[in-house]
């Protein structure tokens, strides 16, 4: 019988450290599937962020580097510039990409660096215990906004993808979600597009993935998926932004 579904070569056969219902495992797998399908594993260099996904290199079977918190796109910029023959991508959370690393994000995008960015937006700081993130929704309770995010004290959820879409150096931006199998397949297509753009030297591509964090949303895994569909998507609408 023909095997129609198998483990990716780009993913090690090991359990991950992620919480039950977390989206990182799915997102890691999507990246690995895309790398396999494009046959670029042997020339891919991934940049892991500081955050829950810091040890992504324990799961991905290709060259990886850590970067200091927020600096993934500075590190990736240099690697791609000195080794343009490699495929270089960053994998970053909302705190990493849209708070401490906003400057690196904007300027790498504005230079039109030929990179692919996988941006995990789960509206909260996971690794440090569920603090307010730049993308936390108004009213959302976190350990540093216990009454819920309030616009006067905390400002509004930051739509970094829409901001980046204004920059001429940016080639492609799409927001996707992990809330259902259909959306997961769309997410994979978007990640593949971002990698293909790099292969075709088209410039800066970013895929924002709305990803569940049941632990710090105080919801069950199933409720978390529903929350993305019913609440989070209203603030962060899905689809092609650029």
């Amino acid at each position, binding site marked *: 019988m023909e095997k129609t579904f198998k483990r990716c070569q780009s993913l090690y056969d090991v359990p991950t450290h992620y919480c039950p219902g977390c989206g990182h495992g799915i997102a890691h797998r999507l990246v690995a599937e895309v790398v396999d399908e494009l046959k670029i*594993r042997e020339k891919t260099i991934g940049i892991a962020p500081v955050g829950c996904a810091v*040890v992504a290199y324990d799961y991905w079977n290709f*060259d990886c580097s850590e970067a200091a918190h927020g600096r993934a796109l500075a590190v990736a*910029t240099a690697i791609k510039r000195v080794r343009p023959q490699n495929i270089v991508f960053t994998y970053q959370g909302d705190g990493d990409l849209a708070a401490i690393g906003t*400057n690196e994000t904007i300027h790498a995008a504005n230079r039109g660096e030929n990179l692919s960015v996988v941006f995990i937006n789960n509206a909260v700081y996971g690794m440090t215990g569920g603090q307010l993130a730049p993308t936390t929704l108004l009213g959302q309770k976190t350990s540093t906004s216990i009454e819920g995010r309030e616009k006067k004290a905390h400002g509004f959820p930051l739509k970094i993808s829409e901001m980046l879409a204004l920059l001429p150096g940016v080639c492609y931006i799409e927001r996707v979600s992990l809330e259902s199998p259909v959306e997961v397949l769309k997410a994979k297509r978007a990640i593949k597009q971002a990698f293909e753009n790099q292969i075709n030297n088209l410039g800066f591509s970013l895929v924002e993935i709305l990803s569940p964090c049941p632990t710090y949303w105080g919801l069950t895994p199933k409720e978390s998926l529903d929350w993305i569909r019913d609440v989070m998507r209203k603030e962060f609408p899905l689809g092609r932004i650029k």
Partner: protein
Amino acid sequence: MRGNLPGLLYSGMQINMLKKRVLISGNEAIAQGAIQAGCGFYAGYPITPQNEIIAYMSKQMAACPAGRPKKGVFIQAESELAAINMVYGASAAGVRAMTSSSSPGISLKQEGISYIAGARLPAVIVNIMRGGPGLGNIAPAQSDYFQATRGGGHGDYHLIVLAPGSVQEAYDLTQVSFDLADKYRIPVMILGDGILGQMMEPVIIRRPKTQDRRPKQQTKPWALTGCKGRKPNIVKSFFLREGALEEANLKLQRNYEIIRKKEERFECLFISEAKVILVAYGTMARIAKSAISQLRSVGKKVGLIRPVSLWPFPQKPFNLKNKNVKYLVLEMSYGQMLEDVKLAVCGRQRIEFLGRSGGGVPNEAQIINKVMKIL
């Protein structure tokens, strides 16, 4: 203020002459030395008084005569943080990489330098010091000595710190820095000051003959190049498993121990007969040399120890048997290197200090006055 006494060649360096002389500033010498050493990546952010380096690198790396490959990649970064992390990335990909800045900018880079040290990446970082703390001013100073020699960022680590005393030495030591960085997989800092950076002197274009020629790509098996034909490489400084960080830190410490033994660099003048030994580095040592030549012309027995490597701090020249010799430590700061001299002398002899900072530089007359009081 140019010292008119001959200096001894510091340890471990032979010179390959190409016999070409040019008149350039210290900043340009550092940039040219980096190009000569095969620096393939530079990222920086403008700050006075080192802007000639970023301008020179920009020009050199873009220059691409017909038929010749580009010399390297230049990026004007959006911040010092981005610049040092770009150096981290280029170095992780196996390329010789450098950044340069001045005091406040170097403070910003400290996080990245700590990561570079933790990930065992080679890199060259140039600090052309200005006055501090805070925004300070743009006058020359030596007040980043503690930051440079004690690591500077978080964690138990060191940089190799080299302090050139002339434009020629700035050119030579920059090349040596790249070799040391690759050899020990350690960040190396060139520590100069605004005078050294701006001053112009004739420089002989040459390649110092150190043990290591420019290493080729295959000598960096840890570099990120894509995992074709091998297991994936990981560049990281995060060790979460119990005991793993201690193990990694002990490896760093063993590396530092070897460097301490092998990489002391210094210059000594007249120390065997001296009653007072001046201790100074960089620009301060040049002024000290001028004072020494005046003092010796009237028969005063004065010598000089000039540390060239500030980390590892030279221990050997301070191992003097004569209990009556006195040291006078001179700095363009308020007693930072003084602490290392005290550790090296270990209470065997008396130590005096003269320092100014914030734009003030101890001059020959002040040094001579102080020496006459001590003698």
